[in-house]
């Protein structure tokens, strides 16, 4: 199986984290903006209060009258340089007593005002209006330029903050993902190797830290335990093989030494006993082989293999066998298809299946072998026109020791199809039984 490159495809996760980070930064920007605006407003108000009090300051011990204030305004106008502030005095009827600014009558205290400058530009300002004892209104207006410019740059600032936060968030998540992936890659590589049957593989922990190291260590402990168990089982089957074969060898020796002295009546009996010896060992071999294949312990010579050549070869070998059983074998269209496979195992697979056809179909059955190329790889198809299998039997016969309904009394371990399936799986392929109407079709797909 091809190992995927780094899953920088934390994918959605990276985008989600990036967006979250950007939103947080945006909220922070808004808070900063609001605080700054507050501060500026506060300072404007302070300045208004200060300048207002300057104009309202008592004149020779007497509270300043409208006339005094009007005079002070006139004096300011006379010597005024550029200023962001302006002063007006309005009579109780709203008439302007002093000052040049034209604004609607503001309420006493602080308020927002709009006014038109001499350049006919509408400005916004902050006003502090103070009611004088004689009923007239003294107003200081400050053009809130700082606040205005702050609001003018706001959209740009917000956009910039959002974009850079999004980028920073994405980058941070990617970096985090990559660092995580680098650490997980060790685990992944080890797990893949173990899945391929290398139980001695462990996760290298030197370069890991924190939870990754802890996780790797506990996985390694699990693998130690698993390897112990598998080894124990392997030794058990080795010992069993040995302990079963040795008495069978003795038995066979004893039987054949009995032969010369035995009467003729014993002759057939001894031969049959020898055959039974052989079939006990054959079943045992098949079981061991199945176990080897399924646990990935089969010594394998996987190399590029031309299925077409191999299928033609097996067809040559098995054609006389099927003919001797009263059937026939034809070689159908064979596409050239090179797959990575163990030739010995694929030979066994096809021979097993053809032997099934030879022994489990009535005389007159014709089997056809062909090789097709499909999107998912190469497909070897073995079809026969025999009685076939009912659909419920098709899944049953793939299990160890299960046989088709017609096979009672026939020889064989009942492991043939299980081994065939184990061989196909060993190559990462699939084996499927289908109705050939009439007959059975076996499709073996090998990944390209």
């Amino acid at each position: 199986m091809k190992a995927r490159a780094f899953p920088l495809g934390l994918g959605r996760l990276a985008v989600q984290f990036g967006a979250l980070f950007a939103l947080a930064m945006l909220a922070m920007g808004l808070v900063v903006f609001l605080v700054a605006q507050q501060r500026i407003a506060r300072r404007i108000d302070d300045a208004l209060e200060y300048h207002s009090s300057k104009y309202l300051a008592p004149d020779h011990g007497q509270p300043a009258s409208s006339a005094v204030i009007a005079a002070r305004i006139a004096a300011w106008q006379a010597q005024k340089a550029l200023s962001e502030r302006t002063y007006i005095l309005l009579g109780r009827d709203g008439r302007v007593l002093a000052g040049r600014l034209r604004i609607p009558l503001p309420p006493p205290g602080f308020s927002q005002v709009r006014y038109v400058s001499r350049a006919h530009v509408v400005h916004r300002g902050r006003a502090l209006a103070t009611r004088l004892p004689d009923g007239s209104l003294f107003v200081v207006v400050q053009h809130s330029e700082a606040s205005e410019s702050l609001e003018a740059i706001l959209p740009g600032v917000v956009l910039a903050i959002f974009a850079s936060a999004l980028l920073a968030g994405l980058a941070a998540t990617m970096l985090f993902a990559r660092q995580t992936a680098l650490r997980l890659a060790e685990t992944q590589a080890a797990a893949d190797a173990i899945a391929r049957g290398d139980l001695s593989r462990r996760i290298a922990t030197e370069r890991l830290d924190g939870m990754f190291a802890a996780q790797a260590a506990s996985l390694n402990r699990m693998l130690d335990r698993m390897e112990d168990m598998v080894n124990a089982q392997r030794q058990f089957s080795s010992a069993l093989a040995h302990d079963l074969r040795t008495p069978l060898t003795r038995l066979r020796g004893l039987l054949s030494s009995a032969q010369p002295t035995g009467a003729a009546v014993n002759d057939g009996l001894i031969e049959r006993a020898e055959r039974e010896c052989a079939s006990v060992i054959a079943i045992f071999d098949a079981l061991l082989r199945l176990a080897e294949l399924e646990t990935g312990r089969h010594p394998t010579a996987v190399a590029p293999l031309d299925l077409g050549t191999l299928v033609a070869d097996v067809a040559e070998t098995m054609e006389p066998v099927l003919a001797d059983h009263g059937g026939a074998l034809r070689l159908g269209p064979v596409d050239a298809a090179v797959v990575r496979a163990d030739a010995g195992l694929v030979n066994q697979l096809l021979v097993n299946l053809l032997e099934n056809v030879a022994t489990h179909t009535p005389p007159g059955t014709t089997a056809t072998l062909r090789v097709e190329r499909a999107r998912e790889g190469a497909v070897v198809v073995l079809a026969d026109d025999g009685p076939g299998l009912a659909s419920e039997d098709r899944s049953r016969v793939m299990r160890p020791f299960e046989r088709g309904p017609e096979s009672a009394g026939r020889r064989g371990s009942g492991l043939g199809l299980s081994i065939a399936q184990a061989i196909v799986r060993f190559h990462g392929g699939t084996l499927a039984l289908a109705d050939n109407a009439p007959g059975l079709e076996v499709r073996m797909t090998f990944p390209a």
Partner: protein
Amino acid sequence: MHCLVVEDDPVIAAHVLDGLRGAGRSADHAATGRAALDCLARGRYDAVVLDRMLPDLGGLAVLAAMRGAGEARPPVLVLSALGSLADRIEGLEAGGDDYLAKPFAMEELLARLNAITRRRAAPGDATGLAVGRLTLDPSRHAASFDGKQALLNRKLFSLLAHMMRHADRVVTRDMLLEHVWGYAFAPTTNIVESNVSRLRTRLVELGVDPIETQRGHGYVLRSGACA
């Protein structure tokens, strides 16, 4: 032919020794790996039948020790109760000349012992192989006898070539499966019988029938029948 049988199980050892003597060969017996190395140091043997599982040194350790002796060492048939393909490969890689899984038929053991003792002198490939008037043409996959020619498929051609190379010697079904087909599994049908019988039919058409069936276990291609 003088053989050394290294086998710790007395019943199996007796059976093998009887079989060898019955086939006209002399044989010594060693029950342990060390005893085997002693025997090999003292005497000359034409072949060794070596059990893989011995009480002291394992069979593979004995093989390794023998390999130290270089070219002069006799060919070894490794006997083993471990029948898996991995064990077979291990046995051959350790320097065994052939490998036989228990339980085995005596005829099988004799045939294989014959094959490995003669293998070193046997000719290499099938180029211009001829036994008497029966000849093979590898470029056309054809067999000729007395000017008549039969085209064979690749399997039948290899089968005939193998039998001609081992003319007048017994080749068993298992040996043919291993050497002609390269199958490391036991088929449940008579693959060898069916192919040999097909081959015989083709040869009979040419007017020659040199392949004899040995009761139970194998075949012999008689050079006398091709003369």
